């Protein structure tokens, strides 16, 4: 089974985020980028599938942040090919629409029975990217996937629904899967293996071309959320705290 894994870099929340007042976007001067966590899960699931069923894993990412190291790390983990999409301004942040256009253009260049990507990202909580790639390629999409199995030639994706429900969805033909979590936590690869990959692996480049978004929604404002209500601290002696707590619980109808 040949798998393409789409990975992107997202703002690292370990740094304080600043908003650029002139563009209404995150101020990229102070931004630190990191690989999207769920894309790491997508890579892990792809590697597990390769280990079980053979085939190839190709990792495709957009040139932003420290992508070379991420790609060498992916190669050290077992990816067969690593590709970065290069072009002007890609490190200035991309909408999910534009990202999907780039990914769809690139993904088709490498063998793919399945295309895996993280089902969400900190800058794409709606989880548009994977579905938009599928739409552009005319392939079915299943999101919130926690397991992918290949049985008798058919691919079965386990999709998680709210309320603890799961569905096993059988897929005919090629598909894009949005991975919520791999079956196992993403593997650790020792630094010496990454260093070895830096010497032996070639990162392939793919020109971004003119793939445009179908629709770009203008962003007219961005603001840091203001906390509306704060937690109420109950203070006093143990007896006082217990009395206040009991009163509160009764008032809210939580105890009779």
């Amino acid at each position, binding site marked *: 089974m040949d798998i393409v894994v789409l990975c992107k870099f997202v703002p690292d929340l*370990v*740094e304080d985020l600043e908003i650029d007042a002139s563009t209404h976007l995150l101020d990229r001067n102070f931004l*630190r980028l*990191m690989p999207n966590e769920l894309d790491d899960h997508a890579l892990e699931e792809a590697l597990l599938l390769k280990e079980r069923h053979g085939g190839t894993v190709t990792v495709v990412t957009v040139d932003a942040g420290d992508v070379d190291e991420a790609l060498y790390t992916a190669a050290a983990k077992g990816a067969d090919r690593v590709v970065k999409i290069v072009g002007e301004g890609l490190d200035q942040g991309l909408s999910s629409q534009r990202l999907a256009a780039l990914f769809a253009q690139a993904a088709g260049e490498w063998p793919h029975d399945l295309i895996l990507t993280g089902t969400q990202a900190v800058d794409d909580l709606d989880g548009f990217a994977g579905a938009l790639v599928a739409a552009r390629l005319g392939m079915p999409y299943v999101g919130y996937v926690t397991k992918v199995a290949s049985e008798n030639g058919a691919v079965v994706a386990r999709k998680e629904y709210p309320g603890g429900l799961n569905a096993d969805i059988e897929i005919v033909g090629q598909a894009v899967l949005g991975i919520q979590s791999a079956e196992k*936590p993403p*593997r*650790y690869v*020792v*630094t*010496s*293996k*990454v*260093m*070895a990959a830096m010497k032996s692996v070639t990162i392939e480049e793919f020109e971004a071309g003119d793939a445009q978004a179908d629709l770009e929604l203008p962003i007219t404002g961005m603001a840091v959320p203001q906390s509306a209500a704060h937690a109420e601290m109950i203070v006093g002696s143990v007896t006082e705290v217990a009395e206040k707590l009991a009163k509160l619980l009764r008032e809210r109808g939580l105890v009779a």
Partner: protein
Amino acid sequence: MSVATSYEFLDKVIHATPDGEEIRKCLQCGTCSGVCPYGFAMEYPPRSLIAALRADDFHGVLESDTIWLCVSCFACASVCPVKIPLTRGLLATLKTEMLVGGSIPQELQTALGNSRRYGNSLGESPRKRADWTKDFTVPVPVLAAHKKPVDVLWFVGDYGSYHPRVQQVTRALAKLLFVLDVKFGILGAEENSDGDTQAFTGEWGLFELLARKNTQAMLKYQFAEILTADPHAFNALKHEYPRLGLDRPVKHYAQFLTEHFERLRPLLQNRGPQRVTYHDPCYLGRANDNNLYEEPRQLLRAIPGLDLVEMSHNRALSICCGGGGGGMWLDGFSWEKAHARTTEWRVKEALAAGAQVLAVACPYETPRFEDAVKSTGNEGKLKVKDIVELLVEAVFG
């Protein structure tokens, strides 16, 4: 990269340290396994590990994950009658094999991943490494901005820089340097984790990466010697960094302050009686025969009103706080496997010795022992303080 047989693995062990050949002399006496703080819970404590390798059962060894209980405390290596470098050789090399094979507890993976991405195991912003100096009364020059030679480059370390409890110790040391009029500077955002504990989890590649960054950053500046409050940083800077080109003397504050003893002593005043015991950190004592046992005690005895008492396990027999060798990042795993915390044994020993204060000299120890005081139900009965905190109290009240 990974090896397949016991013999291939032993060959790696033999080449991991200069005296690696000594492993061939193992008598199977079992002293190592007996002294190991977690030996009781390991499927292959050192003696059994060597026996398994001799019986060519490397597969069985790799199947077990209890090597991750090893806290690299050098207890086994220090008692071995034939001086096998067990900690740095056999055990650290086995951890490397486990890492390469992908057998790594999740919590350790997080710490190693953080170290690689952010240069600190806590996963904090590298830019905020010197934030502890903000709104602080003592001026702490960051060398990149200072642009003047200093006498002392102070390597602050991960926990000293970021951990809220250990930051108090860091500020205490800054106050002492200030009153002693030491011309010092820190690397600030240019500093990375010293990498010592990462190395003892078997991640030597990560150690090299971090150590090269630190060495390059340090050698940009003019200074005479390196000071650190972290025994792990001390150990790495002293014994591992020289091969990467670092050529300056390295001192733990216990050494540095005893060298400035004649100036420090007159500043220490009697702030009331207190009975104190001292926990020897593994990496000041046993590790690499660092043998810094008397300097910390000299500093403590110099505090007027301080009565120093000893725990039953002291100096080379000290019991690890459980933080070394990756233990700092494996608390969940260790509890699950062993249902024991060495810090709790130590707290009980300190109380049995009649101590009111447990004095420490390693950044792992203050938070670990404070937790153990609470988890043994002894809150209010024993305080945990770094030696520099006790000195600052004696100087400033």
